[in-house]
């Protein structure tokens, strides 16, 4: 199993390397001139040349890349062209918002999606199943930003106009400042995220559970006199879990790099909204940093998934002994 994990780590490093080449190349070939962005429209040619030289943009591509990676490995992501703040500081300040959004949302989507999927699979064809499937297909079809805007309109704007406030409009309150405010401000984004994602989990859970419930060992468990709850959760759900864990890992990994749409709609200043701003402003170092950070999250979560997967499967686990 150690071999397996080592090979996964090597693959993760490869992913990050290629990703860094990708973003680097992307900006290297970019027609826009960073010096112009930093110095503004009225800058003289000399000033811009000066800036280019300071940034090392006049050196050959490989050298630039080497410097870039060298700095990267020392944790130096450069300075934002726009705010002149260190990029690392800028990005790190946004991570708590995104993490709060993702992990809070995860609790909701798991709590909504998995029970719906299990209930559907236990009584396929029943009214409960049809409801669950309907929920799932609507959720999967709902574009996140439409749902978010509708939620804001119906749950924030309409009540506020009618004189009672259910939810705050937007913004983020740090957890350490006030846990209650934190949760209250995040509740609508959480629910929006959760409804869309829960649909995926409900479908996945249902499909997996249906397959597992048709297995011979489920019949054995029933023949043993194990009660139905235990059959469902201890026997069937145990086997249905690995694909769910995989999906969860993929989702978390992708989302930690920025829940772009939800952050945009709810005005949360997370990594994703930083990315959108940076892209709009052509703030190259920030974009590079966020893409790489996203890559790191994906690689780490894949690693966690692979390890969990191996631990969940007795066949993989025992093969290592």
């Amino acid at each position, binding site marked *: 199993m150690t071999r397996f994990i080592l090979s996964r780590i090597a693959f993760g490093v490869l992913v990050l390397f290629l990703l860094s080449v990708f973003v680097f190349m992307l900006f290297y070939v970019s027609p826009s001139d960073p010096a112009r962005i930093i110095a503004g429209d009225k800058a003289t040619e000399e000033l811009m040349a000066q800036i280019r030289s300071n940034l090392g943009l006049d050196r050959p591509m490989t050298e630039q890349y080497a410097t870039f990676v060298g700095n990267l490995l020392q944790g130096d992501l450069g300075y934002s062209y726009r705010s002149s703040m260190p990029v690392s500081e800028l990005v790190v300040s946004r991570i708590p918002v995104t993490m709060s959004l993702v992990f809070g949302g995860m609790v909701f989507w798991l709590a909504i999606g998995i029970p719906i999927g299990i209930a559907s699979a236990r009584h396929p064809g029943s009214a409960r199943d049809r409801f669950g499937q309907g929920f799932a297909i609507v959720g999967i079809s709902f574009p996140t930003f439409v749902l978010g805007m509708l939620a804001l309109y119906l749950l924030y704007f309409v009540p506020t106009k009618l004189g009672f406030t259910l939810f705050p409009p937007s913004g983020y309150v740090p957890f350490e400042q006030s846990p209650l405010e934190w949760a209250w401000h995040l509740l609508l984004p959480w629910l929006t995220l959760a409804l869309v994602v829960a649909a995926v989990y409900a479908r996945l859970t249902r499909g997996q559970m249906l397959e597992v419930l048709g297995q*011979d060992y489920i019949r054995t468990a029933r*023949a*043993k*006199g*194990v009660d139905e709850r235990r059959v469902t959760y201890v026997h069937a759900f*145990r086997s249905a879990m690995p694909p769910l864990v995989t999906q969860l890992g993929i989702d978390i990994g992708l989302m930690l790099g920025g829940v772009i749409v939800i952050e945009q709609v709810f005005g949360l200043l997370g990594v994703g909204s930083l990315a959108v701003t940076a892209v709009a402003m052509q703030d190259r170092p920030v974009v590079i940093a966020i893409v790489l950070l996203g890559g790191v999250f994906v690689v780490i979560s894949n690693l966690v998934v692979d390890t969990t997967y191996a631990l969940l499967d007795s066949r993989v686990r025992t093969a290592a002994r």
Partner: protein
Amino acid sequence: MTILLDVRDLAVDIPTEDGTVHAVQHVSFSVNEGEFFGVVGESGSGKSVMVQSIMGLVPGARTSGSVLFRDRDLLSLAPEQLRSVRGREISMIFQDPLSSLHPQYTVGWQIVEQIQAHERVSAKAAKARAVDLLDRVRIPDAAARFDAYPHQFSGGMRQRVMIAMGLSLGPALIIADEPTTALDSTVQAQILDLLGEMRSEFGTTVLMISHDLGVLSRVADRVMVMYGGRRMELGAADAVLCGPAHPYTAGLLRSSSFNREPGTPLVPIGGRPPSLLAPPEGCAFRDRCPDAMSICTTKPPVRHYDDGTEVACWLESTPVEPEPPVLPPPSLIATGDDAIVTVDALRLAFPQRRGEPRVVLDDVSLEVRRGETLGLVGESGCGKTTLARAIAGLVAPTAGTVEFDGAPTANLDRAQWRDLRRRVQLVFQDPFGSLNPRRRVGSIIGDPFRIHRLASGAERRAKVQDLMELVGLNPEHYNRFPSQFSGGQRQRIGIARALALNPELVILDEPVSALDVSIQAQVLNLLDELQRRLGLTYLFISHDLAVVRHVCDRIAVMEGGRIVELGTADQVWNDPQQPFTRRLLAAAAPEIPREPRERRLLPPTGSAGAHADRHHAEQLAVEVAS
């Protein structure tokens, strides 16, 4: 004798997309305490659905009738009450022990779970009991194996674990659903012996289901024969198996290879089982019965004989024995000096990622003589299929040579390869897997013509229809998909495809093991007839020694990648030299003695046999003979 399980008029209907499947139709029987009760039937006879629905294990099934077990009707118990019966008073053992055990939990955990589902015992006590049980079903080093997962056991050991689990609460009844079908024959025998021992040791009653008459004749006290969801015959095992009173039982025995003289053609039951969606009025076996009379369109009475046999049939005499089919004389006589295939010191090893390469074939030498049928027998994983593929030239050997008609089959150029592909053909085991489900039968059988560019258009179609005729398929079904044929018909399609190019050697890889006994006989007879007419040479691979002895001239026994014994069928069967061959033989189904039996038909009692006295009021002596 007290009755432990009393099934009265049980009917099971299962709604499906195509309509309601009447899987079990008004079946009654009772199992006495302490006996070994066998239920035999082919696929679609409803035997499995019947026992599983008794236990409430068939989702969506609608049941009627009653199943009395210790004065309770299992069919009308509340779910929670039924649950407390399951596993504690009645436990079940299933066909495939690998898929029937949860792959993600240790076997110990699974046994402990069953104990704790019904009794309040400490984890420690439960574990001690589980280890003791594993020990009693003779799993070596039981305490250490407690923490092993199912995939770490062999097939036979897994079934022992299932039996240990089934016995864990000392149930009154064990229902074993094809418990040995997925196992090798030598392991099969061990498991049957174990079941027998456990029955005497624990005083448990056993209800065992099997498609295999040979297996049941070995262990059962009483046997019930099912067909088309109905009970055909019920009685003491030796009475039913030695002197069948129902034409179906008689037909089943006639089509079993273990029960016939080698070399004589089998007498198959023609036709196909009835649809369970629309079961026929009257007798379900009517359409295939050689004794069918006009009265058979009405529901047959249950006749009682003085030896306890009960038969649902209008027939009052011994079932007739149809003449075996007459086969043409062979067009090619095998001789010792005309080898079509010569295998010399063949070795095949697959490299493994770590450690030693896995040796699949080890120094194999043999020859296949033109015109003969050479049997290749061995248990799963012995290398017999790999050897066949090597002979066909589909896998390259690591060392040694295979010569076909004097020319080596390795390192062929394109033309030689295509030529070899015409002269050697394969028929596969799985009639479901070997035909592409998305292509029409005409295109499947016509494939050889297309691939070798030998015929196209109307000519190809005509040739394909000739082939279909040859193997006994209706040529009008040219445009159907494989899923629209039964298992036996599909195997005929595979045979037709193999014969398209007039091959010299046909390799038959377990051609009948996925088929029901009565269908097996049809296919075996077809193969025999084709060989005689077309002068084919067969390499017949099987795990079933009885079938091999029946069809083969010579037999090669394989074990662990080697040929351990090679001789004529008679030599191997009557005078085995190797211990492994002896074990195989011992495990093969025993021959059933077929002495004539005296038995008397009893007068009808009650309403069940109201019509029985229509022809003969007085007792009728029936001599049952074969």
